[in-house]
């Protein structure tokens, strides 16, 4: 056994107004050598706290952390030589080069000259960073930084490798490479008893772990091999084929069906998870055609453990269509920053009531396109019309028709829910009467009435996100812009969020989403794939999957399709 936590509880003391936060409670688990133990859970589950406790960076409020026989509360120093730790932001010195970062970690672990001469070139070759040895770490792409962080953590051949969300914010291709690299290192270190702890919010990554610790809001839901999570779900997961036009209606019907535990949109089908013991519903009654059993996924297991009713979003009032032509029309849009072209002749259009997703890795030009469409950034060339208004000529008028929800929580943490809503209502110029109505409706429709007087910063992530959406919709915009709206949110909150977005689209609101998150992409009617500033494909999720289908890949996922398209571009 490599490490063990027993009866672990960690409480962060509160501030002047904030209550103390219980980050972990009642967590007991063991970490074995020779495998990757996944610490899996949505944001706020306590993953980082658990890894920091294992690294001896925090002292537990209660319980014990033992690494290689050392009690980390008193004897962390002794264990540090055998621990490789990669924090969430990689822990690299950005103004040091790749080689200098490695040398620093070699010095810190007091590696001898011979060991260095052997290991550093090997790690550089292994991570593909050899050609960039002299480049400053700050100038590396996200994927390369992550590899360098991994190389630094591996340099001293640690017995225990702790990786805190190493795959956040990097494109799917880099994510796969990273898994392959860690698997290789693990195979090499097997005889010296190496083990890996990998924290992730991507539930699909759990399936690749040897054992999974499932955390949710500081509590441990389960500790088991991933197959155990799936075993209970055999014969309970189905794909319901539905015509694209009736997808959302069918989803709504399925969600209220008593046999159904969970509904998720997946391209041209709905993915249904049935309650234990329930018999499959009639596909035609739900508005679909066929019901096919499919293999369960880890996420289904997560939802099964939480076992709540699927989210049903209230029907939204119909949004009148204003102006003719498409809701968003982008033609040959270009944005340069000096010699660098961030957005390179991008054209697409989005119809009223459509959910359109811009999908691409970080740095591909999604956010730049987004900012131009919001009128926050002036295009270098091309045109963009939003709600029939030219953004170059009438940015303010166009902005009044747009609702915007930023990726990070962009409300005022110090204000209460009610104060935040009142502030945004005033900012959007709602008069006193309209303001009162809009706020009352928002509190009601988004279930915020109970937390009305709570300070926004103290709310759980899912509630914050509801509040942000409520604020973006106060002025009843024709078009809603969402920037990675559900990254890191737990699957239940994500389902509930997208049910609302679906209801809004049904009512005629046009939705534009940017994401590097495949789960979010599935909810879109159409997707545009952006890579290196260029729009390389525009299609429905089903269409994109069809493009990647081949003899070697009979049932490609959206991620497979994405990687193929980016490689081919």
């Amino acid at each position, binding site marked *: 056994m490599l490490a063990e936590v027993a009866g672990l509880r960690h409480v962060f003391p509160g501030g002047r107004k904030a209550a103390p936060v219980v980050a972990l409670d009642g967590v007991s688990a063991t970490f074995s050598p020779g495998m990757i133990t996944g610490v899996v859970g949505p944001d706020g589950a306590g993953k980082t706290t658990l890894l920091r406790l294992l690294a001896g960076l925090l002292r537990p409020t209660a319980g014990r952390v033992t690494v290689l026989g050392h009690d980390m509360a008193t004897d962390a120093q002794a264990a540090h030589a055998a621990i490789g730790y990669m*924090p969430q932001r990689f*822990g690299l*010195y*950005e103004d040091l080069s790749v080689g200098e970062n490695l040398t620093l970690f070699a*010095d810190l*672990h007091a590696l001898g000259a011979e060991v260095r001469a052997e290991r550093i070139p090997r790690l550089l070759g292994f991570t593909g960073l050899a050609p960039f040895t002299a480049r400053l770490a700050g100038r590396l792409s996200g994927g390369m930084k992550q590899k360098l962080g991994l190389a630094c953590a591996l340099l001293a051949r640690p017995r225990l490798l702790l990786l805190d969300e190493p795959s956040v914010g990097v494109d799917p291709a880099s994510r796969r490479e990273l898994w392959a690299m860690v698997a290789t290192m693990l195979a090499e270190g097997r005889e010296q008893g190496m083990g890996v702890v990998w924290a992730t919010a991507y539930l699909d990554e759990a399936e690749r772990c040897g054992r999974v610790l499932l955390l949710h809001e500081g509590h441990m839901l389960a500790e088991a091999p991933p197959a155990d999570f799936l075993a209970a779900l055999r014969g309970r997961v189905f794909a319901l084929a539905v015509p694209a036009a009736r997808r959302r209606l069918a989803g709504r019907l399925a969600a209220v069906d008593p046999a159904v535990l969970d509904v998720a949109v997946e391209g041209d089908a709905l993915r249904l998870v049935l309650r234990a013991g329930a018999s499959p519903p009639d596909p035609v009654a739900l508005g679909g055609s066929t019901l096919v059993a499919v293999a369960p996924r880890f996420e289904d297991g997560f939802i099964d453990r939480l076992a709540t009713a699927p989210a049903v979003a209230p029907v939204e009032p119909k949004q009148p269509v204003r102006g003719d032509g498409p809701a968003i029309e982008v033609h040959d849009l270009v944005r340069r920053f000096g010699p660098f072209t961030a957005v390179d002749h991008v054209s697409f259009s989005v119809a009223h009531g459509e959910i359109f997703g811009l999908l691409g890795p970080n740095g591909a030009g999604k956010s730049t396109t987004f900012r131009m469409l919001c009128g926050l950034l002036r295009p270098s060339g091309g045109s963009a019309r939003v709600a029939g208004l030219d953004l170059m000529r009438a940015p303010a008028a166009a902005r009044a028709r747009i609702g915007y929800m930023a990726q990070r929580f962009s409300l005022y943490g110090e204000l209460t829910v009610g104060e935040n809503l009142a502030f945004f209502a005033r900012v959007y110029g709602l008069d006193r009467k309209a303001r009162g109505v809009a706020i009352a409706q928002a509190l009601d429709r988004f279930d915020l009435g109970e937390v009305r007087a709570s300070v926004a910063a103290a709310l759980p992530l899912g509630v914050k996100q509801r509040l942000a959406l409520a604020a973006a919709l106060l002025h009843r915009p024709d078009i809603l812009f969402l920037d990675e709206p559900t990254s890191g949110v737990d699957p239940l909150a994500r389902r509930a969020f997208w049910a609302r977005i679906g209801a809004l689209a049904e009512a005629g609101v046009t939705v534009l989403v940017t994401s590097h998150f495949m789960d979010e992409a599935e909810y879109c009617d159409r997707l545009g794939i952006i890579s290196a500033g260029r729009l390389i494909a525009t299609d429905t999720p089903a269409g994109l999957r069809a493009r990647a289908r081949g003899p070697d890949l009979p049932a490609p996922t959206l991620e497979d399709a994405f990687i193929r398209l980016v490689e081919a571009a």
Partner: protein
Amino acid sequence: MTPALMRLRGLLRKEILQVLRDPSSLLIAFLLPVVLLLVNGYGVSLDARHMRVAVVTQAPAADTRELIQALAASPYLAPVAASSTAEAGRLLTAGEVRGVLVLPEDFSARLMRPSRWPAPAQLLANATDPNTARILEGYVQGALLTWASGRAQEKRLLPSGGIALEHRYWFNPELRSADFIVPGMVAFVMSMVGTLLTALVVSREWERGTMESMLASPARMGEIIAARLICYFGLGMLGMAMSVLMAVLLFGVPFRGSLLVLGAATSLFLLFALALGLFISTLARSQFVAAQLAFLTTMLPALMLSGMLFDIASMPAWLQALTHVFPVRYLVSVLQTLFLAGTVWQLVLPNLAALALAALVAVGATVAVTRRRLD
């Protein structure tokens, strides 16, 4: 090489590379002292030289012309002719002159006929700054008296003899306030630079998340602190040497003491300032808060309570007691002594001892608050 030395070498190399790559530390170490010394050395002048005084002569005569010449001969005064009291009043209000000297119609007549009533003259001074007003009064009075007694002797109106006061100003014979301010300024600069350097550097590591990977590595806390102190000590001493050179070469302040003592005093103080910066950034963890705290804890005491600008001996007793808490006062005292008087051991030694104590306390406090943990 022992593991500890190897870790220290790695940390030290990292710090040096960061300093060389990141312009902000170099700017703080070298540009900030230059700017501060230039602005304060030239800008803050307590000297009153060439004060403009409007002279209103209601009946011009040979005597009044002589008097104006005598005023002009003083290095401190610059007489300006004004045609009327009204105009002179306007000049005074507009701030173009510091004072107005009115020589009434009967000035010359009374002067010729010394009687029970001496010749009247009126001085109007702009007393918004009472100090300058008093200085002006003194200089005008002095110039008038010198002129009057010279004139009396010339005309044999007075018996010869009397008292000849011969004065010498020690330590600063030319009464240049730069000689007094600039050494203090060097202390001020070091106080700010030393603390800012480390306060920002460590909080930056917290912000960028690199501190986390340092803490999880085998590096000991003492090694991390020592590497920082060594690197920024070098940088701070270079900045200090540059400030001293500027003081001597640019501002012409004499240096009369021992360079060795200068080195000892500044080393001790720098150690204190750097440790204070580390202490602040350990507690603050964000660059913004750290910068604010660094300014608050160094700038105000250095400016107000160090004796650099304001004489500590003339402060109220409780404030004098308070100045002892801020080590910058000991450095100011040592520097002023070294620059102006030379190595006066009975002054230098107690101050050096105080500086050593301050450095010890600051380093100790930093080691005490720096724990190997995030919480």
